[in-house]
């Protein structure tokens, strides 16, 4: 009988401990809010920097947008996410609050879904949507969810889609919201991320996102200091080369005869037009290394075809298109292998530009004098169907001249090897 009592007490203590641990975990997760899901105020030294958030932006950004209630939304992939700062002085009062709804590593469809959600969350009159050549390419050797549009639409972003669809998916939307919050509350992974968030507050270079959805890309700094910026370039160039060297890349799916990315963009533009939202499209600037890789892997004709198709879409939908690609002092800085060398002024690595370049882009798109030394002819080119051919010819010629003038570029591209001192 005594033994039964001992077992009984054991079970009571066990259950009490279980409940206490779960409650402590939930409390800690709400207080620290490592994914910026609950909207706990950010306090410097406690939870201001959020190193676990970058991996959860797909989940968190819709909730962040709901809190910001933006008037201006920036969309796209990781490039505008770390290039266009919602707190840039280039934005005027009429644009604020600005929310950066860009999400890394997602299809154009999902990028536009995030923008639509952010638009629905506020009172938006302006959308700036950045595009990337690679996001429009279909690799026919690759199968899977990237090409599986219905499956993507059914994913969580679909549940959190635009208001027009919420009537249809109200149950799934509600259950998704409950699930997101439950998972973030009662989760050991979240608890570990909360602790990591606390520890990271002393790290000035912690990977994070601002409340407005911007990626300050501070985590590049320790890599540059430890390994040199050339290593970042070498690694990115290798990845880009691997993707661009595939021979089966195309813009249109050979099976369906459509381009999922262009279809998504078309649908988005129609959606925005219905709501009287002014959309500005822009092509992200690439470093000359990136352009060089497009050229040397034989994808330049596809690159031009992509821009032509974009320009056609612009005409059909009466929106603006900016191309920020150029071979100029802004895009041809060469990275240093030396860990003590200063960082490049305009690019982190060939695919990702810094907010300083982003400010130049905003100055052009917003027609505002907000940067210290603006280029004489402005930065970037506003293109349409009529001016595109001339623009592409100019870009191509300048790139060829740059390559001819810098014969060592090939060597630099292929031989930047990691250096360890």
């Amino acid at each position: 009988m005594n033994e039964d009592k001992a077992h009984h007490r054991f079970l009571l203590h066990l259950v009490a401990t279980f409940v206490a641990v779960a409650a402590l975990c939930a409390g800690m997760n709400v207080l620290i809010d490592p994914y910026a899901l609950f909207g706990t105020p950010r306090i410097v030294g406690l939870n201001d920097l959020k190193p676990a958030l970058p991996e959860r932006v797909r989940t968190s950004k819709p909730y962040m947008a709901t809190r910001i209630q933006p008037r201006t939304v920036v969309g796209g992939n990781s490039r505008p996410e770390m290039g266009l700062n919602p707190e840039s002085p280039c934005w005027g009062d009429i644009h604020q609050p600005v929310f950066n709804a860009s999400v890394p590593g997602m299809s154009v469809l999902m990028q536009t879904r995030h923008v639509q959600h952010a638009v629905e969350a506020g009172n938006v009159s302006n959308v700036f949507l950045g595009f990337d050549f690679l996001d429009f390419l279909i690799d026919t050797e690759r199968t899977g969810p990237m090409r599986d549009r219905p499956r993507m639409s059914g994913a969580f972003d679909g549940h959190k889609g635009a208001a027009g669809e919420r009537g249809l998916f109200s149950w799934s939307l509600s259950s998704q919201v409950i699930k997101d919050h439950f998972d973030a509350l009662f989760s050991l992974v979240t608890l570990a991320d909360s602790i990591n968030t606390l520890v990271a507050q002393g790290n000035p270079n912690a990977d994070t996102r601002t409340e407005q959805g911007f990626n300050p890309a501070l985590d590049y700094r320790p890599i540059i200091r430890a390994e040199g910026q050339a290593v970042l370039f070498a690694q990115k160039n290798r990845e880009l080369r691997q993707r661009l060297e595939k021979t089966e890349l195309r813009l249109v799916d050979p099976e369906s005869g459509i381009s999922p990315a262009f279809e998504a963009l078309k649908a988005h533009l129609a959606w925005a037009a219905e709501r009287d939202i002014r959309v500005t499209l822009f092509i992200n600037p690439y470093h000359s290394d990136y352009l060089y890789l497009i050229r040397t892997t034989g994808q330049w004709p596809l690159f031009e075809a992509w821009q032509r198709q974009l320009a056609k879409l612009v005409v059909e939908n009466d929106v603006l298109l900016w191309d920020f690609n150029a071979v100029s002092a802004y895009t041809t800085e060469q990275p240093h292998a030396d860990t003590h060398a200063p960082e490049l002024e305009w690019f982190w690595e060939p695919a990702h530009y810094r907010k300083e370049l982003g400010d130049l882009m905003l100055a052009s798109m917003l027609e505002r004098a907000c940067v210290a030394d603006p280029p004489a002819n402005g930065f970037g080119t506003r293109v349409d169907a009529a001016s595109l051919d001339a623009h592409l010819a100019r870009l191509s010629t300048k790139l060829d001249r740059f390559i001819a003038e810098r014969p060592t570029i090939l060597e630099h591209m292929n031989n930047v090897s990691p250096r360890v001192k």
Partner: protein
Amino acid sequence: MLFNSYEFLFAFLPVTLAIYFIVARLGREAAILWLVIASLFFYGWWNPVYLWLIAASMGVNFLFGTALGRHGAASRRNGKRLLLAVGVAFNLSLLGYYKYANFAVTTINSVAGTEFFINTIVLPLAISFFTFQQIAYLVDAYKGIAREYRFLHYALFVTFFPQLIAGPIVHHRDMLPQFMRPDAMRPMISNMSIGLSIFALGLFKKTVLADGIAQYATPVFDAAQRDVALSFFEAWGGALAYTFQLYFDFSGYSDMAIGAARMFGICLPVNFHSPYKATNIVEFWRRWHMTLSRFLRDYLYVPLGGNRDGRLLRYRNLMLTMVLGGLWHGAGWTFVAWGALHGLYLSINHAWTHLVRRLSLPPLLPQPLTKAIYWALTFIAVVVGWVFFRAESFDAALVMLNGMAGLNGVALPNAVAVRLGPIWPVLHGVGVTTYLGGGLQFIMTWAWILFLFPIALILPNTQQIMSRFEPGLQLHTAEDRAELRPAIRIHSRLTWRPSASWALNMGVIAAFGVLAMTRVSEFLYFQF
């Protein structure tokens, strides 16, 4: 339904338990009926389509078993044997169709250049387990060891949900008598606390440890499948991560099964006994998936002749048993290779033991060193085997093994190398190079491996922790030379009792196990 799901933990298990003990007041048969219904619901939760299959399989096997039980006279032995053969053939053809038909057609097409086609057949959940369990029942019925004349009882033996999906493989004679005990239907608080503790340990192993390291094994094997040349540390990192993932995953699952059954007052056979502590491969197989090992020994190896007809035939029997055991795990050549490799290991182990005994060799090295070498050899052999087990293709396994052999060089992530300070020039001097990217992945992989190694090698296992309270059937005991015993003194301090401190520990472990469930994961053994 998964054990590591909220619907199981907070709905199915408590409701089934409560109703079971309430219904038991009405009588044993009512309680058994409830348990069968609940178990079928548990089975059908994921995909109810194959409920008919398990029901039909049980029905046919019950008829065969009943007939075998009634065929008592020696004069009718041939008829009985024929009946057994037909029964076993029925089970094997069911398994063969659902599990191996696609594999057989693909193999025939690739070998003979034919173009036979069959649609992809979806593998019914747990078919390998309930088929083997029922074959064992038929053989036991043939031998007169098992006899069951009530279909409901037979259905409970097959479907009892804790062991239905992934074992342990139980015998009718081990389980049904427990339900027939006079006090079997009475809820006992001690069974609850013991069962819950065993379950909590299993859940923690699965959701915290196995799922925690799984994310570092998968990318490496995926890279091998893409024919990426893996360097030494990358390949070993992936192989060791999978080695621990599989162990904590499957042994965690077995603990949960044993714990859940214990809450109903039923003791299941233990399935793991710290297999990575084994110092030879024979001992490893006495500790890894123990109920399957015993099944293969009793129903395959021994009928093939075992060791009765000389050493050479013994080795042949070992090879055949292990190859078929490999094929049981999955319809693919990598599983065949894994089985063949272990057949070879076992044959070498037996041959070596025979040789040492025959030559009466004096020990060349001090005993602890010999033991350490034996352990290292065994462990490496097991890890190499897991590479075939996990790899998606034979080629991918070879890519992994090339990396592990150092054929692609020894390299560290550049980000790690730059932080090694004065050690790096030394490493670089002996040929270690660097590669870009993957620094965090590298650090986390090896941190997890270094964290899990001592847990698998030093800490007591679940049945040792619970040793004072009969944690399972067929407990394993080993000689000192058969296992590594580092820090054995810890074991006595980590013996469970229903105390406040253990309640605190188990409460934390249970909470961590539940809180770690938000990751999407499936049991590795689900498809076997």
